């Protein structure tokens, strides 16, 4: 690619470049302006200022990479710089203290990158290759622009820091409430509802509304920011789980017998009898699918836009009561009593993957918003974090005295666990790193046993449903500070909501597209490509794209004897053969290493392995 960086050639600081410029022969018409520029006191001052300014830029980015990213926009500028120093000066004579394009934070640019350059297409034609290169260059430019635009984001995330040596876990909610502003303090509240016993709760996708259902039939929905109650009913039946559908106007409630759907007035709209004895609900907003896990061991997908059951999958693992969705790829994770977590998509009758996580049953599962980490807790009192990319490796584990019954991830990667009547929250380094389990970030003791946990989207709040009611905890730094107005806007008007609803329905993703890698749709299907090629060769009887065997041209001068022709032919053939052998030799040691790696202990049966 033309943007490929020349290794560290243009990294050397500006000083060298300036020197090089000075040595360059000058045109006679340049001379006057240049000497004038050289004589002016501006130039050396500029250098000094530059030196002062350099270290002030973000430290965490390393220079080589920074230069690579910011190089491209510089390219057209270079010839101008080489000719004259004039463009750096404005009309008023003041010098630009920050010459050149603004630097781009590398981390941010990486976040926006979509194309994996390490993947190459097998034997692609030059035309395709050049087109791909253009697309890649465009992609890089877009990621740089997106990274630059991060500067425009208005809000900063919250934080909580202890003074030297102070443990943040020791800070109690009352202290935080006292320290923060009134508006934030109002977000901490306790609903004392002892009568209708342990509560499940759910925030709407915009984070504006809260619905909760008690085990003894109490169901309510409210705008929790303004504390305006939307509806409150008693369904006279045990409520197992409650979930908002795509907007706050619809509410799915898993009751003792069947699944019911209510609107925000508390009017029952539907009773879905095909989903019976539902224990857990999950809603996939982009697919308009309501996933239900039932006591009978079925995972059922209900398309709420057309009211059709898209798939009913038998997990063959007994009662299902641990379920979570992966927000990155809409795969449903089910936890089973034999310690495995299985991954499901409505397109497949069998699980996409099964991960053995615990000895003993799985009690809770949670997946973070980037879809990278999964936290599980089991009956063996372990809390584990798995990497969902690739081989599902456990990253860290910790034994908890009581074991966590409920887990939840926040938008910025905080992990909350409910253990008995205590809630622990762990934090990681940043948004894309797993939470470190050594030291909790916050702890809080509630007035009853935890029964449901969810971080509120776009607010630093953790909602906890317990046997004593509902508690809204303050967790600084939990939520994404800057929402996108076109996706989920907490401040949207009714009109905006209606428009969003129409758009969302128009681009409802079909259920068949749910798979582990949601970007797979944009990649080349190499397997079927190869298959097609093979079939074509079979049909035609020859390979139309095959390289013709080398045919030496007859000599222009002198005689070309048959022997010499054969000799030349043989020479080329031998060279090709040698190349092939060399390649295969290079690949072999890698293969052997790979074969050796997984076996840790030698076995008596090894001698029979060839």
């Amino acid at each position, binding site marked *: 690619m033309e943007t490929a960086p020349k290794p560290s050639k243009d990294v050397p600081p500006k000083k060298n470049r300036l020197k090089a410029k000075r040595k360059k022969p000058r045109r006679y018409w340049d001379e006057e302006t240049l000497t004038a520029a050289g004589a002016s006191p501006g130039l050396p001052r500029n250098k000094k200022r530059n030196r002062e300014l350099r270290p002030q830029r973000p430290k965490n980015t390393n220079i080589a990479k920074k230069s690579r990213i910011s190089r491209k926009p510089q390219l057209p500028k270079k010839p101008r710089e080489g000719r004259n120093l004039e463009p750096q000066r404005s009309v008023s004579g003041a010098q630009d203290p920050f010459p050149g394009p603004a630097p781009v934070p590398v981390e941010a640019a990486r*976040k*926006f990158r979509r194309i994996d350059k390490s993947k190459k297409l097998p034997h692609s034609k030059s035309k395709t290759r050049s087109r791909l290169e253009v697309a890649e260059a465009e992609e890089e430019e877009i990621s740089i622009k*997106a990274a630059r635009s*991060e500067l425009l*984001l*208005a*809000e*900063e995330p*919250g*934080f*909580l*820091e*202890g*003074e030297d040596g*102070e443990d*943040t876990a020791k800070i109690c909610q009352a*202290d*935080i409430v006292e*320290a*923060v502003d009134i*508006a*934030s303090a109002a*977000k901490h509240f306790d609903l004392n509802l002892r009568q209708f016993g342990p509560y499940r709760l759910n925030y709407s996708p915009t984070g504006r509304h809260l619905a909760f259902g008690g085990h003894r039939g109490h169901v309510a929905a409210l705008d929790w920011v303004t504390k305006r109650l939307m509806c409150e009913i008693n369904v006279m039946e045990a409520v197992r789980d409650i979930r908002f559908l795509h907007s706050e106007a619809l509410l799915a409630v898993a009751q003792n017998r069947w699944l019911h759907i209510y609107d925000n007035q508390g009017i029952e709209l539907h009773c879905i009898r095909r989903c019976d004895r539902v224990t857990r609900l999950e809603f996939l907003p*982009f697919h308009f699918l309501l996933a239900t896990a039932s006591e009978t061991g079925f995972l059922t997908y209900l398309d709420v836009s057309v009211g059709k059951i898209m798939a009913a999958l038998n997990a063959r693992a007994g009662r299902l009561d641990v379920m979570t969705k992966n*927000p*990155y*790829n*809409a795969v449903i994770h089910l936890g089973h009593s034999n310690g495995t977590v299985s991954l499901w998509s409505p397109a497949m009758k069998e699980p996409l993957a099964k991960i053995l996580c615990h000895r003993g049953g799985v009690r809770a599962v949670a997946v973070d*918003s980037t879809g990278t980490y999964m936290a599980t807790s089991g009956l063996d009192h372990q809390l584990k974090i798995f990497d969902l990319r690739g081989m599902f490796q456990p990253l860290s584990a910790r034994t908890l005295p009581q074991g966590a019954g409920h887990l939840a991830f926040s*938008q910025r990667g905080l992990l909350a666990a409910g253990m008995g009547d205590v809630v622990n929250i762990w934090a990681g380094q940043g*948004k894309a790193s797993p939470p470190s389990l050594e030291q909790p970030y916050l702890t809080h003791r509630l007035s009853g046993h935890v029964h449901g946990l969810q971080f509120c989207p*776009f607010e*630093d709040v953790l909602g906890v449903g317990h046997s004593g009611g509902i508690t809204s905890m303050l967790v*600084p730094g939990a*939520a*994404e*500070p*800057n*929402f*996108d*107005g*076109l*996706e989920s*806007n*907490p*401040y949207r008007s009714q009109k*905006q909501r209606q428009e969003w609803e129409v758009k969302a329905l*128009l*681009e*409802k*993703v*079909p259920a068949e597209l749910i798979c582990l890698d*949601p*970007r*797979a*749709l*944009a990649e080349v299907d190499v397997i079927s490509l190869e298959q097609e090629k093979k079939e074509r060769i079979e049909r*035609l*009887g*020859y390979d139309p794209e095959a390289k013709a065997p080398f045919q030496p041209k007859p000599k222009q001068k002198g005689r070309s004897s048959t022997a010499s022709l054969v000799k030349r032919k043989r020479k080329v053939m031998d060279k090709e053969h040698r190349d092939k052998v060399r390649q295969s030799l290079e690949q072999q040691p890698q293969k052997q290493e790979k074969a050796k790696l997984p076996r840790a202990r030698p076995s008596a049966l090894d001698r029979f392995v060839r």
Partner: protein
Amino acid sequence: MKVKMLSRNPDNYVRETKLDLQRVPRNYDPTLHPFEVPREYVRALNATKLERVFAKPFLASLDGHRDGVNCMAKHPKSLATVLSGACDGEVRIWNLTKRKCIRTIQAHEGFVRGICTRFCGTSFFTVGDDKTVKQWKMDGPGYGEEEEPLHTILGKTVYTGIDHHWKEAVFATCGQQVDIWDEQRTSPICSMTWGFDSISSVKFNPIETFLLGSCASDRNIVLYDMRQATPLKKVILDMRTNTICWNPMEAFVFTAANEDYNLYTFDMRALDTPVMVHMDHVSAVLDVDYSPTGKEFVSASFDKSIRIFPVDKSRSREVYHTKRMQHVICVKWTSDSKYIMCGSDEMNIRLWKANASEKLGVLTSREKAAKDYNQKLKEKFQHHPHIKRIARHRHLPKSIYSQIQEQRIMKEARRRKEVNRLKHSKPGSVAIVSEKKKHVVAVVK
């Protein structure tokens, strides 16, 4: 203890009055926009479906001729003016914006074989079966004047085609031979022949203006340089070529409409292999015309349809037909590259959109942005089987549909035979001839 909670001021996110626009803060973080690819895919699918829904290419039919339309010409200066010549010797001038005939001339006895406009747009030439070449004024006769040609040249043989030089006062006719005429003179400056046969069409190259191409009924395409007395070179194909058309953007590329249902795009410098063989018609191709962008061309066929081909693709991207359209004899792509006109046997000239689903008229900026976005999406996901199927689907009349099936079977049989022959003979003894090379018989210089 240092603590900061996320606390937004609603004033920054809610509009002040109802007259304001809603505030929409954006954050392009990919975690806030999950399922980017599947959602884009669904959008692309919707855009493709809508494209097919809005594909209504037929705009108007210009009727008035009393016999089949045999030839057409574009006005070089006015987009709204079109000239057409019919089989009964009548020439009509049309106004496309009014969709009306503005002038009728009884130009010849018998067919009007060819019509072309002068580069300045002040006059036009016609040739007919009555062995005459006539020059006419573009404006109609004044009050009381009679409709008369400016000049009439009486020839010895029938002229079958005419084309005007793009810059000079020179034109070329064809018949028994290719004649180059000066407008001021009544005898040709030079006439060129290569063998004895009737030449069906002659075309000047719009860029290298001295070059001409002609095609004759002895299966040749012959290239001439006006500055030489003899032809340059010729290529002999399997069957007869009806017309050729030069690419208006690439000087050395031309496309030939052949009787064997195919079109061949040639590079003038290497005539032994066509650059591309365009197959899709199911009957002889009668006329071809390039889009002014040089990226696409339209072809008219005896199978009662017209097709639009990209220059670098062997299959057509579009096929137009109507119930009443008979054998299409001539076709033109308008100079603004937006419309296509075709003249057919049943006396009508039809006006089509070049892009079937394009919205006519002025687009608002939001419409334009949406159109561009959808276009890009369609391009991105064009190879996905579901989208490809919808985008490619065309309804065809039964005659064409069954012919396609039939020809597919024939082609498959031929291919099978070839494969069998290859399989059962000594390796290397049967040469594999590519589809491109199959149709070229010889190149003569």
